[in-house]
């Protein structure tokens, strides 16, 4: 069955259509072409023609022209629009014209580098030129490294390796740094938050070294669709970047089906589980021979769905192999095999985490099922983009879970369809991150008086600080590294916490094995003594947590419960940065707070029934984090108009709404930002709503929230008003059982009042 036939079948099925909230058709788009740019090295044209390419899509041609005009560009590319041409062609052209020219390719993951290198190899083979492309990452054997450093025209690596393996040893890479023409960064939309802030600083270091070696490389960046690709590109690179987003690649008609599983308990608003609904839809696709990809949010759900679908087609002929799972944790060879199977059409259904959201080449599929909302509009479109043939129709199903955000999306399809995707947010000047990279930079090349570090604010202040700490020595107008440390090995790029705990399995006393690691802020929750820790579905009990040496010792157990720790969080004020006073003691602030977390107790919860079957005590010291927060202190008249209970219910409702809304507008994971309410806040001495970054030093989330607070409050009000539940549900203020019968109304009143005050 093809997709058009499937569409007819589904539309005539009233049982199916009853749950369809919206059926959106996205019309087909014709291809638009442009000739090869005149400045492109003409030797490449026969190469392209051999590959069947006789002209370029408009966006490709424009990107190449801009690059050849010596401008930095960011290309916004939907899946399968031929983005690699946008960077491979200028790079090959430059190397053909000057064999000394070098290019550096950065991909966020190793899997992606492998994919792109093979494509570049093919092109190079066809040119017949002696152009050497090497991957330089943790897997590159020591013996090959020298050759890569000396002879690689194109060095393919990842930000982590650049940070700890290349920049601190730049003197071994003289050829690369002296001749660096292009820096290619693909998938820049993944570089937001902490990771992006780190990359921006790695690039500051890179450019600083390029200047030392006398090169001035250009950036070619690629991004999936996000709201602010140019802003992101400019923040990452510190350069003015030309945006190219006029996609000339064709795509067939696409159907986007918003599906809400049926409610089986009206009072509790309980819906049929998203997993079984997804299973039914993916199964229907599988039975009808429509090649599909299903995205699930957790690894566990991926495994469960894979199992369901395999069982559906399992037979002695080995047809279960037509269904495959895909996620982090699989071996690279297995991943490659699955990707190839998808391209070759040997696999009919793949169930994946967001691991396949990135630009790994798996070809285009007929259908995509989103099992729950992936958290951002950008992600959802990335995933949906996996379905989309150039000529024929494709179909996407969004299956909502009962989670508040999911329900919001399914009941507001326009929010999803019409709204631009999120902003990608990063803060390269985050003090923690900046300081760490600044040290690396000082190690790599001494700062001289008056030197800058990209566009980082106040480098002089940092230099003076590091000198006073005896990490740098200021003498003769330069700041020299005077510590034994190797600063780049002190921290990784993908988490704000600089310390990691290793998890050691001591089941076999003779053979201790490190099975994983965890950042220090999560450790008290999941690795306190007596916690049940789950790793690849296997249960372990934590026997000993060694805080001093950052190790958790665990032992394999088989029990029928898991543990959930109670986290006590208290906030105290360190500093107010900005304050707006309004009448009636209402005020709003942006400032620094100390978040003290203490785990005192944990619950034991039965695996199957989720009953509480006991508890235990945790003895761990309090952990402090300094971060950025913003808060609203409610006006006195409003407070007095509520009973104490109603006030608390209302605050709880608003904080629930803010928790739903803020990740959508701050472009962060729900866990990146914390929203709490306090009936009597030690910070403001009154009932308050507080939002803070869950990263040390802050990630700029609270300050962005502070700037867009009216929008946030308006969206909260929108949600609660348009929600059709009578007294609160998970999609707005929270279920009645949580916020009480008056919670929803109180939340509306609080929001209205705050907005009125802000407008007045």
């Amino acid at each position, binding site marked *: 069955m093809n997709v058009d036939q499937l569409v007819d079948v589904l539309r005539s099925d009233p049982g199916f259509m009853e749950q369809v909230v919206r059926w959106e058709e996205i019309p087909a788009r014709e291809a638009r072409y442009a000739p090869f740019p005149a400045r492109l090295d003409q030797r490449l044209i026969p190469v392209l023609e051999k590959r069947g390419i006789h002209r370029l899509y408009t966006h490709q041609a424009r990107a190449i022209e801009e690059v050849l005009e010596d401008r930095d560009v960011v290309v916004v590319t939907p899946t399968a629009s031929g983005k690699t041409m946008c960077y491979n062609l200028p790079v090959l052209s430059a190397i053909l014209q000057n064999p000394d020219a070098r290019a550096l390719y950065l991909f966020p993951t190793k899997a992606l580098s492998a994919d792109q290198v093979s494509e570049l190899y093919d092109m190079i083979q066809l040119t017949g030129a002696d152009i050497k492309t090497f991957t330089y990452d943790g897997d590159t054997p020591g013996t090959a490294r020298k050759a890569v450093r000396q002879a690689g025209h194109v060095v393919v690596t990842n930000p982590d390796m650049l940070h700890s393996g290349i920049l601190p040893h730049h003197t071994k890479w003289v050829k690369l740094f002296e001749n660096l023409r292009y820096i290619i960064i693909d998938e820049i939309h993944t570089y937001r938050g902490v990771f992006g802030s780190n990359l921006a600083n790695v690039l500051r270091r890179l450019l600083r070294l390029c200047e030392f070696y006398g090169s001035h490389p250009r950036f070619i960046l690629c991004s999936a669709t996000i709201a602010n690709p140019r802003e992101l590109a400019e923040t990452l690179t510190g350069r003015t970047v030309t945006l190219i987003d006029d996609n000339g690649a064709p795509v067939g008609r696409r159907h986007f089906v918003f599906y809400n599983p049926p409610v089986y308990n009206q009072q509790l608003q309980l819906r049929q589980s998203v997993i079984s609904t997804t299973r039914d839809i993916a199964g229907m696709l599988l039975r009808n021979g429509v090649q599909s990809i299903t995205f699930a949010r957790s690894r566990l759900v991926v495994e469960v769905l894979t199992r369901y679908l395999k069982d559906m087609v399992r037979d002695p002929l080995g047809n279960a192999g037509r269904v495959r799972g895909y996620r982090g944790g699989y071996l690279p060879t297995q991943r490659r095999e699955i990707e190839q199977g998808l391209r070759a059409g040997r696999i009919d259904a793949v169930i994946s985490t967001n691991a396949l959201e990135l630009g790994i080449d798996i070809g285009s599929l007929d259908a995509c099922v989103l099992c729950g909302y992936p958290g951002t509009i950008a992600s959802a479109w990335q995933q949906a983009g996996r379905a989309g043939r150039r000529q024929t129709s494709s179909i996407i199903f969004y299956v909502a879970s009962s989670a508040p955000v999911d329900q919001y999306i399914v009941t507001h399809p326009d929010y999803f369809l019409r709204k631009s995707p999120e902003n990608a947010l990063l803060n390269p000047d985050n003090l923690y991150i900046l300081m760490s990279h600044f040290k690396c930079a000082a190690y790599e090349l001494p700062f001289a008086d008056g030197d800058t570090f990209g566009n980082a604010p106040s480098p002089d202040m940092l230099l003076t600080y590091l000198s006073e700490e005896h990490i740098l020595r200021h003498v003769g*107008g330069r700041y020299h590294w005077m510590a034994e440390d190797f600063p780049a090995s002190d921290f990784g790029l993908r988490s704000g916490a600089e310390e990691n705990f290793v998890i050691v399995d001591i089941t076999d006393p003779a053979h201790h094995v490190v099975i994983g690691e965890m950042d220090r802020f999560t450790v008290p929750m999941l690795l306190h003594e007596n916690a049940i820790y789950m790793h690849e579905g296997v249960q372990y009990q934590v026997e000993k947590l060694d805080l001093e040496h950052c190790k958790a010792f665990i032992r394999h157990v088989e029990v029928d419960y898991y543990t959930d720790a109670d986290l006590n969080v208290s906030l105290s004020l360190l500093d107010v940065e900005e304050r707006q006073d309004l009448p009636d003691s209402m005020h709003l602030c942006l400032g620094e707070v100390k978040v003290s977390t203490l785990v005192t107790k944990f619950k034991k919860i039965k695996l199957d029934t989720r009953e509480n079957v006991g508890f235990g005590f945790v003895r761990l010291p309090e952990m402090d984090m300094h971060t950025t927060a913003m808060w609203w202190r409610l006006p006195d008249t409003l407070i007095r108009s509520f009973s104490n209970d109603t006030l608390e219910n209302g605050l709880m409702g608003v904080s629930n709404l803010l928790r739903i809304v803020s990740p959508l507008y701050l472009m962060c994971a729900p866990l990146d930002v914390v929203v709490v309410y306090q009936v009597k806040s030690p910070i403001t001495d009154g009932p308050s709503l507080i939002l803070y970054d869950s990263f040390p030093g802050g990630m700029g989330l609270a300050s962005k929230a502070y700037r867009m607070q009216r929008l946030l409050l308006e969206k909260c009000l929108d949600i609660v008003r348009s929600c059709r539940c009578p007294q609160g549900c998970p999609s707005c203020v929270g279920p009645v059982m949580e916020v009480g019968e008056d919670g929803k109304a109180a939340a509306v009143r609080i929001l209205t009042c705050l907005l009125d005050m802000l407008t007045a």
Partner: protein
Amino acid sequence: MNLLEKLRSLEKTQKAAEKGPVFTECLVRTEKRPAGAFPDQSFITRDALGLIRSQDLPLPGDPVRILYLDTETTGLRSGAGTVAFEVGCGHMEPHGFVLNQYVMRDYPEEPFLLEKVREEIEKCDLIVTFNGKTFDLPLLQTRFLMNRVSAACLDRPHLDLLHAGRRLWKRRLEKCTLSNLEAEILGQPRCDDLPGSEAPARYFAFLKTGNFGLLEDVLRHNAQDVASMCMLLGKMCRLYAQPEQIGFSEDLFSMGDALEKEELRIQARRIYRMVPRGRLHGQARARLAHSFRRFGSPGEARDVWLEMIESREGGILPFVELAKYYEHTEPDLEKALEMTEKALAVLSEDWPGRDSGTVQKSVNALQYRHMRLRKKLAAAGTCRDPKERQGD
């Protein structure tokens, strides 16, 4: 006080950059040690050095001017920010060993230190270091580059005594660190020595306090390192020149191995022949035969294998090798078959440490060879009657 507060308080009190002192040179400290403390120096000749490292040592005639070089650094991991704050350069003169230690008393003296080191290097024909291949020389290369000074002088011939020493003594000594070689090879165990790993901390303490006394231990350690290299090279050259004085068969075997790696086949064969009866004798013979076989003297290889069989050395190896030899080189298929059968017979014996897996692999290979030889013999029409073999 948190980081942010500290930074803010700094911002308020930030002073204008001070005008510091002017730096025009690095510290040079020269020391002479009497020649008597350096035995075996006369053995350090172009020829002896050529035995230790033949391929990339294009040395002029004697005397070879040798620079013994060792650095003390601000970190033990090399990277762009690790600096050599002291470089010890030693060379032998007719009246004794001259050691120049160049110390930068602060970072701005680095260019002057590097200039001195460059001069030292340019005066020599050969740089000798201990672990300089991976550490000292790349580090100097980085320092030259960071100071925008040409590093061309580093292209000079270089002998790394760590590698040369390992080749020679790894079979006998547990570790081939410089201090261990001093104790085991030179018979001069070090005492009161500052561990090299403490040098960076000492240097930073000196920078903070200005107390040069903190560096004395580091300089003493460095001087010892440089002097030891010179003694060690003398000893090593002497052993190469007079291998008959080597008292350990491990060392002899290792020397043969080292010479072979340098493609000094004739010399290597001579050394292998010197390995006395005992544990490594068989292995040395096998190497010897291998060397003959590989480089055009199959007849001599055959003789060595036959000797090995005579003295019951080398397990199945001489049989297998002879089987190959008789099959392909001589050729004498009957003898080849005989050797294959003998090898199989050896394998069927039980001996301590017998690993049945490995044995099975050898048996399979031999049986395959046996089969092929029989086919060849049959084709040649000279095969023994298969029935004749049934009693085997």
